[in-house]
């Protein structure tokens, strides 16, 4: 199966943008990454097995492209993260602090945390997307949670 890119844009544009942003921490770069990902989808002949397969592929491509953005020699004149956060409208102070705490996590923990808490992927699914072992994902998840708890104290619960 290969749904039209218009359908996928409508369905995944926002989630892919949030995923890209959570990796590269830059709005302009995140938009470039999402656009490049849809161009990649649109221009290749790859067939997919299922809707889940497409979603996982899009997310993997977005993550890799966003990591690549971080690796490029010259980056855009980025708006500092703190300034960007000021432009966002959070529902509460707690949400703003959680967002900032996640953004301050090391990249490898941030990605796993985001896939688990935002995209609702299981440890097994995250391992497949990132091509890691399940135990590696568990470790990153656990360390990410610990860092969030240290920062957010009681605002970050013990539930998983």
């Amino acid at each position: 199966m290969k749904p039209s890119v218009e359908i996928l844009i409508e369905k995944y544009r926002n989630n892919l943008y949030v995923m890209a942003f959570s990796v590269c921490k830059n709005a302009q770069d995140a938009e470039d990454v999402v656009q490049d990902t849809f161009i990649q989808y649109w221009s290749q002949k790859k067939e997919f097995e299922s809707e889940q397969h497409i979603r996982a592929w899009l997310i993997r491509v977005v993550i890799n492209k966003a990591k690549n953005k971080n690796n490029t020699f010259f980056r855009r004149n980025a708006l500092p993260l703190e300034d960007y956060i000021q432009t966002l409208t959070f529902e509460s102070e707690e949400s703003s602090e959680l967002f900032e705490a996640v953004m301050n996590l090391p990249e490898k923990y941030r990605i796993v945390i985001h896939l688990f808490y935002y995209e609702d992927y299981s440890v097994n699914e995250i391992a497949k997307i990132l091509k890691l072992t399940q135990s590696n994902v568990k470790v990153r998840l656990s360390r990410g949670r610990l860092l969030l708890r240290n920062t957010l104290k009681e605002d970050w619960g013990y539930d998983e």
Partner: protein
Amino acid sequence: MTNKEKYKKAFSAVHPSDEFSLEVEKMKRIRKRYVCKKMAASILCCVLFMTSAKVAYAMDVGGIQRTVQLWIQGDCTNVTVQFEGDGTYSMEYTDADGNEQFRGGGGVEFASDGSEIPLSEEEIMEYLTMPDVEYKDDGSVWVYWYDQKVDITDKFVDGVCYVKFVKDKEPMYVTVKYHGGFAAGPHKYVDPDSWVSN
């Protein structure tokens, strides 16, 4: 409220900008530019490879045909190479996915008086057995040399990655600039500042 609910609530504030356009027609135009850019990048890689051997890229034209085994992206592949005798070559093979592939290139060496000496068959074969770098569709980056391959997607520091291969106790040092070409040699890493990226 669970952690998941708190997390989703916090990230619900993040949206692409209003100017962010994902219109398909616009994407098609961008794709055309992207293809051109990729072609330019692959030509640049040839130039870099050739430059490291003190040669320069030349147009491939239409010699001696040989069937050889080459390692292409980690797979031992039967390749038909046509040496044109003017320093250029063309080759065709079937890749691991069963697709027919056609590639070509070549170069000339500059003599001290500035005249051009076409690359010999041996020099071209040496070039074809050098390491290769691939930027995959999923965004990952791989370096290949003979049957060895390394995923270097996460290994770039300031846009540069260094990879050392060893085959039959002989080392091969590869310097890769992210989307800026690469250079390889058996003695030491080539300084990434020694060539200009596109």
